[in-house]
């Protein structure tokens, strides 16, 4: 390795990427590529973990046993997804505990959507349908990401997410077809989660500072606006099918392009939530920090027990 200069290594690295050869943990990679991945994968992991909180809120209040079992399984999946992703960050040399502490200190971000409260049961439907739907749009192209461990984790995640979206849509469909009160509840959840779901794809392409480099490195395969458009195009007909109205007066179908044009996203709100001023930012991070602190003695005891058992075995 020392026989080559960095420029030569970088040239060969980009050549591999261009030929769609995956990068694996011990391969040489530019430092920026490594840092970009650590940032993106850890944010993704944090989103899965924090994402358990708004839904966990409803496990004990699910309307029946079937819904409760489904919601539990979904939340357990999110925990699993977080763990696949944390282990992917570790293959890049990130320390897991440091990664988690960065979430708790506010240094690392997570998806802003989880800073909105879940005030009714219909929100479980809206989250599964819209939030998981948007996440799938984002994640499917990541299955072809240039970094092997991330791509492999995403394949598992995508396989598991599809039930998440379906169970959410099922909740919405049932409420929308129920009593006027139930239908109003579903519409209210859609009203509150629609715009934040569109924001999940991130800033407009012109404002997105990481996109160009990430596309060149094949970490990202589509731009934010492309994915957002795709999401709108598939979701609007689904809403119509179950008799709900997308809360956007500017929404219009363009028969020529086959695409919907939609209204202006409130980017001020987006940046406020990213900066930590959303309705639940403090509550979410506090809950994670408390979980770590309250589990400290368990981790300590498990280590002590493991040491004792190892001693016994060697004696």
């Amino acid at each position, binding site marked *: 390795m020392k026989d080559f200069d960095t420029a030569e290594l970088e040239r060969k690295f980009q050549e591999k990427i261009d030929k769609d050869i995956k990068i694996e943990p011990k391969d040489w990679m530019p430092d920026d590529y490594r840092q970009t991945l650590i940032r993106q994968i850890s944010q993704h992991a944090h989103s899965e973990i924090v994402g358990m909180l708004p839904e966990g809120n409803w496990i004990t209040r699910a309307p029946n046993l079937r819904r409760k079992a489904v919601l539990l399984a979904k939340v*357990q999946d999110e925990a699993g997804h977080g*763990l696949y992703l944390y282990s992917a960050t570790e293959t890049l040399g990130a320390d897991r505990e440091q990664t988690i502490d960065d979430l708790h200190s506010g240094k690392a971000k997570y998806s802003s959507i989880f800073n909105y409260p879940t005030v009714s049961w219909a929100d479980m439907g809206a989250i599964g349908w819209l939030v998981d739907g948007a996440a799938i749009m984002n994640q499917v192209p990541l299955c072809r990401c240039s970094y092997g461990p991330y791509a492999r984790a995403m394949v598992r995640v995508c396989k598991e997410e599809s039930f998440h979206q379906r169970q959410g849509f099922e909740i919405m469909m049932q409420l929308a077809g129920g009593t006027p009160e139930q239908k109003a509840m579903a519409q209210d959840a859609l009203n509150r989660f629609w715009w934040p779901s569109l924001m999940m794809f991130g800033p407009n392409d012109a404002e997105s500072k990481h996109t160009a480099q990430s596309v060149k490195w094949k970490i990202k395969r589509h731009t934010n606006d492309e994915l957002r458009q795709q999401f709108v195009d598939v979701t609007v007909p689904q809403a119509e099918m179950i008799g709900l109205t997308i809360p956007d007066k500017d929404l219009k179908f363009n028969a020529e392009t086959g695409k919907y044009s939609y209204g202006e996203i409130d980017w001020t709100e987006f940046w406020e939530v990213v900066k930590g001023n959303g309705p639940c930012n403090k509550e979410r991070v506090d809950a994670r920090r408390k979980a770590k602190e309250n589990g400290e003695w368990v981790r300590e005891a498990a280590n002590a027990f493991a040491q004792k058992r190892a001693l016994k075995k060697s004696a």
Partner: protein
Amino acid sequence: MSKNEWPLWEVFIRSKQGLSHKHVGSLRAADAQMAVENARDVYTRRSEGISIWVIESKDVYASDPTEADALFEPADSKVYRHPTFYDVPDGISHM
């Protein structure tokens, strides 16, 4: 890293009888038994496995990717190890 961070384990799963164990990812656990139990929850929630191996990541000794060309060159240069290297006349079958 605090002193209480659990070690990292690599997880291998046999998906069904007749297939070998395959690497699926890694996780943190205090000891081998806990690593197997956690692997059950993290990697086999949808019947992906019937057997689990775990090994502490620090015990894996891997080949160096920068030396891969030299390491695997001997195999590249021996085309006569493959059946397609040999000409078999038309009319000869079962070979």
